[in-house]
């Protein structure tokens, strides 16, 4: 616990990361010499066609997949060098995931989604980690006792964002947050992401198809065939 509170945030660094999926004739280069830095409080969008390697980028940055080459560093922690258990701990303590359409746990109410995330992260009862306050921040305090099936798509995504942020992560990895939402809701959600990123000082990477919402982002990168470049 001392390590988490005393942690200095330096953001996310990917350096020369290669990832090859499959093997032999069926191998695909998902990430090809990808390098990027995301500063604390910065929202970076990654756009690109399906299959360009956007999900692989999130998987590598989130410690779900170990790259074949390169470094992933978060707050001076070398994620690639960590063991499987070490990477699970990294995910618990320093990463917040926001999934497509929220991916909430069906049995849990909105406030319990956050409470459970805190339990998993081992941060239950820590000061400044109040689930209700967090729901309030994303404008969902009034639905605290609702289960996912009682919420709209936008509401689910708001709870998903609150769940990812309540543990106080260094890195927020967001996977197609607006894929199931209409235009108005999409803007609201990305606006919320931008605001929380700035307020919480978290390094956010958002993968998206939705060019409409890029105006809310600090920087936009493009991914094609596993190669990352600044957007035109």
């Amino acid at each position, binding site marked *: 616990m001392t390590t988490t509170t005393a942690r200095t945030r330096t953001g996310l660094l990917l350096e020369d990361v290669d990832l090859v999926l499959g093997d032999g004739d069926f191998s695909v280069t998902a990430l090809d010499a990808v390098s990027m830095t995301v500063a604390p409080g910065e929202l970076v969008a990654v756009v690109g066609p399906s299959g360009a390697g956007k*999900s692989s980028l999130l998987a590598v940055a989130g410690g*779900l997949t170990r790259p074949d080459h390169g470094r992933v560093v978060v707050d001076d922690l070398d994620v690639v060098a960590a063991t499987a258990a070490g990477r*699970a701990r*990294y995910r618990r303590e320093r990463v917040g*995931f926001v999934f497509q359409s929220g991916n909430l*746990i*069906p049995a849990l109410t909105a406030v319990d989604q956050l409470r*459970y995330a805190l339990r998993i992260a081992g941060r239950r009862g820590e000061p400044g980690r109040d689930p209700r306050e967090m729901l309030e921040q994303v404008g969902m305090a009034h639905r605290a006792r609702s289960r996912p099936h009682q919420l709209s798509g936008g509401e689910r995504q708001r709870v998903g964002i609150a769940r990812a942020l309540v543990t106080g992560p260094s890195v927020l990895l967001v*996977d197609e947050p607006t894929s199931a939402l209409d235009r108005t809701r999409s803007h609201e959600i990305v606006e919320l992401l931008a605001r929380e990123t700035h307020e919480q000082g978290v390094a956010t990477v958002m993968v998206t198809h939705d060019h409409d919402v890029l105006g809310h982002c600090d920087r936009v990168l493009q991914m094609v065939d596993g190669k990352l470049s600044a957007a035109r």
Partner: protein
Amino acid sequence: MFLGIRELAFARGRFGLMGLVVALISLLMVLLSGLSTGLVNDGVSGLIRLPVTSFAFEEGTELDSAFSRSTVTAEQAAAWGRQRGVADAGLFGNALVNAEASGAEGAATPVDLALFGIEAGSWLAPTAVDGSGLGQDPDGIVVSSTVADLGIGIGDVVTIDRLGTRLTVVGITADQRTFGHVDIAYVPLRTWQEIHAGVAPGEQARPGIYEEATAVAVLARDGATVDLAAGDAAAGTTSRTLEESYGASPGYTAETTTLDLIEGFLYVISALLIGAFFTVWTINRRHELAVLRAMGATAGHLVRDTIGQAAVVLVGATAVGVAVGVGAGALLSGSAMPFALEAGPVTAASLLLVLLGLLGAAAAALRIARIDPLIALGGAR
């Protein structure tokens, strides 16, 4: 158990159904256990309650017919009495007879009886709660409490069919004493020998019959073990321990193996059922579990949560099933069905049911460890 408990409440329909099945299985378990104990009581309670450690039968007697075929002599009983570690050895007679009981009202009731011939006043003699024990009166008998349930009481006369021997009930035992589903009447050994030899009242008996009985009942001294082989060699008999002798009770082995088989199947079915349920449950939650793994939850944590769920369902449902079973058992105990509930076997069966169910759930929950957290990402492969 944070998630486990909430999921139980959320999916209460599914878990309720599962719990109902487990409850029904444990109810069946209790009924089978009661039937099993009841049948054992009916079959061999008379033997269990004899203060005997082994029986010596006529040399070479097969076990399944030992009590009806064997004949031993007083000499062999004496030889057993001299064996090292033997506290007491005496002649024991066992014969199944048809009889008629008539009370003061004069109405005759047909009864089947297992006549246990025992030396009156000896170490083998039963202790009666009601009336007196086997006394010097050669026609006085002590009967099982189950005979009293038929409406036969002290002072009533029991007449052996064909021979016409008249015996008088002088005592009733405190508990059930039956052998091969037939009620026991303890008879003074000399009278038993006459009935067994087919000597009608007033007839002259062949002198040899008073030297013979079915088996030698042997009681080991406290803490001592009797060398049965040495005793058999000295007395010219074939010994069976008391437990082995149960197999000589008509139908005993067949009944107990049948019930044991059914009980065994129930355990297996229960474990497989729980395993199957939690397998489907885990597969259903695959995506959700992948999300939790991605959030950093360890597989161990999620497996424990699922096993905890199983424990709640199993313990709760088994408790309900056992409670209903014990209730139903109380109704059955008074009936003609051989049914008796004992805390020991019921507790052991319930524990085994829960334990095997947990094993089934654990086998299913291990799948969680193989779930790839990558599937939580939408575009993932």
